[in-house]
């Protein structure tokens, strides 16, 4: 069990906000932190990792207290057994893939784990390459397994897939899922991609302006549980066009753009940029705001 209670004043591009969160993560749980940028998602990860100090708060992982502002406990990052995967990979350019991985090892003899992880993400062939010669997806795979070599108590992923294109992102989501199932480490995944939320997480925390405004299973949050759809996609409204009594809604789903009709009544509070679920019940597609 991981307990996080933290408060910190932040200056963001939208002005100052007061980050104030209190949540727990069960063993083996993967939660996503979801919400608009500038809401404090990354700061929460950095506070757990020990890269940023909360103004006030308490962070406990298992039996160990990592931070306690009242008792003046603040373990340095090196003593917190974490894995941190950054958005920008952060591989060391002076080392090969293998050297990057070896650098992360505490016990230099633990080469079996390196071999297993390299195999898991299909990078064994590339182990002697320098990071600069790898593609974005390959780099992020190396970063993922490098982080795991520390045998972490908590796995922190800060929008690890946001700089990859859609196809690669889907592939790496699957790999993260495999890795997560293999190690079952409590994981916090920061993202602003809804498909990642649905695909990966057991639970979702929605963070807005430094506060957790909602939490629950993705299905509960987005209210799709009580719908029986044949297919369901999450997308973004690109255009609303009035055509007699109907509204033609252009929705972007992943890399595809599709048009769906809705009645004026349904669409009256939709605006461009809204997140929606497009689904089909038997024959006719239905579109709902999430």
């Amino acid at each position, binding site marked *: 069990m991981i307990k996080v209670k933290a408060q910190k004043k932040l200056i963001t591009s939208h002005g100052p906000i007061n980050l104030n969160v209190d949540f727990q993560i069960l063993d083996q749980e993967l939660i996503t932190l979801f919400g608009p940028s500038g809401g404090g998602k990354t700061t929460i990860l950095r506070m757990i990792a020990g890269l940023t100090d909360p103004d006030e708060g308490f962070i406990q992982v298992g039996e160990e207290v990592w931070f306690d502002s009242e008792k003046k406990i603040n373990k340095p*990052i090196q003593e917190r057994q*974490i*894995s*941190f995967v950054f958005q920008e990979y*952060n591989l060391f350019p*002076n080392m090969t893939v293998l050297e990057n991985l070896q650098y992360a090892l505490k016990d230099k003899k633990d080469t079996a784990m390196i071999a297993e992880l390299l195999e898991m993400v299909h990078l064994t062939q590339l182990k002697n390459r320098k990071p*600069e010669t790898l593609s974005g997806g390959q780099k992020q795979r190396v970063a993922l397994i490098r*982080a795991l070599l520390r045998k972490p108590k908590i796995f922190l992923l800060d929008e690890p897939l946001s700089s990859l294109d859609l196809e690669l992102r889907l592939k790496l989501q699957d790999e993260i899922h495999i890795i997560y199932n293999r190690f079952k480490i409590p994981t916090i995944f920061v993202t602003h991609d809804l498909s990642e939320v649905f695909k990966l997480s057991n639970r979702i925390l929605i963070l807005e302006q430094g506060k957790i405004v909602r939490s629950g299973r993705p299905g509960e949050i987005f209210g799709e549980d009580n719908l029986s759809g044949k297919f369901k996609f999450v997308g973004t409204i690109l255009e609303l066009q009035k055509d007699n009594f109907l509204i033609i809604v252009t929705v972007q789903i992943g890399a595809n753009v599709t048009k769906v009709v809705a009645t004026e009544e349904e669409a009256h509070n939709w605006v461009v940029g809204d997140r929606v679920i497009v689904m089909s019940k038997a024959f006719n597609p239905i579109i709902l705001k999430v």
Partner: protein
Amino acid sequence: MGLVIASVFFSLPFIVNPIKAGFESFPKSLIEASYALGKSRWQTLLRVILPNIKPSLLTGVIMAFAHTIGEFGVVLMIGGSIPGETRTASIAIFGEVEALNYANANFYSAILFVISFAILFLLNTINRKAFKTFS
């Protein structure tokens, strides 16, 4: 000896500045990544930062060297100019010009020019190679 110490002081800014720039431009996120892997500040400095700012280190060293080779003012003030011991190229040139011995002065200048050119050329070649491993 005094001359060496004085030169060190005088050339210090030339070595410190490139290295400082190297440290400053080094991505902080890479340092954090190293800490996040449980590495201490020392380990991070030795195994991540220094190997990656080699170009800056090299620039610093060679700048200081090239600067010291053409040293003039410090030598005149402190070491004097003892032939075969503390006389530097630029002082030798100055001496020959004073003596209206232009042929010798030109010759010395040519040597100094060739040496400094060679050093800068070397610096650029190595730097370009070293930079390849970075970025």
